[in-house]
């Protein structure tokens, strides 16, 4: 058993998009704040901080998670994927990101990082996902300016492009 004291900072190590990162966190520090303030990975956005809006959605050990409903100390030793990991280099876009641009599936972009992470993980797990499943997935995200129709169009097109080659999103970006 290890007991982490409330008023102390504890070392937390994660693998973020394939790279080992470490920082310090009090037990109460949310993973969303750890990513942004300790690591400096500000691609993950923070909206409602109670799990409703979906802006902070990331992938932890292959599973989708709200970073605001996860403590940094719970993620210690885990492997994380965030929006920064979608494209192979900073100057290129991943397949999902490119589809979002083509279909004007973002305006302010606040909700986008979370939506991309949900779609990326879900389409890798379910390469033959149908429209109903993608709609169901998107109920876990709130978008207040773009509207969901262009997001659906982009998601469906990217799904088609990614189907059959699960490694495509990272390798072919």
């Amino acid at each position, binding site marked *: *058993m290890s007991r982490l004291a409330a008023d102390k900072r504890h070392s937390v190590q994660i693998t973020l998009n394939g790279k080992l990162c470490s920082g310090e966190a009090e037990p109460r520090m949310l993973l969303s704040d750890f990513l942004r303030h300790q690591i400096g990975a500000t691609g993950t956005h923070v909206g409602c901080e*109670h799990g409703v809006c*979906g802006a902070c959605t990331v992938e932890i050990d292959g599973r989708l998670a709200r970073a605001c409903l996860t403590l940094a100390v719970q993620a210690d030793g885990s492997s994380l994927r965030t929006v920064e990991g979608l494209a192979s280099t900073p100057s290129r876009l991943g397949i999902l990101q490119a589809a979002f641009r083509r279909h004007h599936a973002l305006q302010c972009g606040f909700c986008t990082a979370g939506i991309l992470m949900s779609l990326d993980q879900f389409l890798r797990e379910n390469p033959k996902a149908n429209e109903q499943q993608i709609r169901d997935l998107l109920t876990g995200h709130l978008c207040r300016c773009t509207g969901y129709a262009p997001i659906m169009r982009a998601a469906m097109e990217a799904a088609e492009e990614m189907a059959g080659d699960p490694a495509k999103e990272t390798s072919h970006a």
Partner: protein
Amino acid sequence: MKPATFDFVHAENLDEVLDVLRREGGDARIIAGGQSLMPMLNMRLAKPKTLIDIMRLPDLAHIERKGGIVTVGAGVRQAALLAWPELAEALPLVALALPWTGHVQTRSRGTVCGSIAHADPSAELPLALCALGGEVHLRNAKKRRRLAAPDFFAGMMATSRADDELIEAVSFPADRRGCAFREVARRHGDFAIVACAAVATKDGVRLAVGGVADMPVTREFPQLEASALDDALNAFAYDLDARDDVHATARYRRDLVRMIGADLVREVLS
């Protein structure tokens, strides 16, 4: 908002969990998937002094089917139960209700027992547990006990769990008889305005209603003629302690209970 401060305990085995609960009781809270507790911490509606993480305990992540009972351990995530190959056949009602629990992105972390421990009156898993006549398995450092679902739930986000007790598992009777589920919410995955579950019984239907009173409410309906059934559902709807809130009025909720209730009872009996 951010949580208030707390110590964080990574428990490695059950004895450690029970020992911390014994010593710290009401000041300590169990955290598993965190999908119910973390919002409470972030909004500071809960301010425990210690959090005990049980997700490193391998013994708790089991689904077991034995003698017509399905037992789901405290470490089983909602997504894992949904992906359990025997779910639709063993627990058809849970198979219908579970996709309404939160979203893909929260079911991937949230546990079955965690939702039941949280006892939100509009939550689907407590409703299914009541409808099926399931049990909650509690344990402290000295003894184990089991509570039937209606004895476990004690009100709005309140349960009969003692401060030193861990919810070790919940069990649902495997029931292949007819069942039906329906929910009305503003957005799929949001809190239910009304959720209804119906299960065929020996001589009729058991109807369970969530989202209306401060906990799931069940009532048995014998086989009735159409008008008699409407009268019985009307009486049931009136007996529910419905409240107005920002999402719906008490009257609207009662209307939904009458309409959905009638549909589900007929569906199960047909």
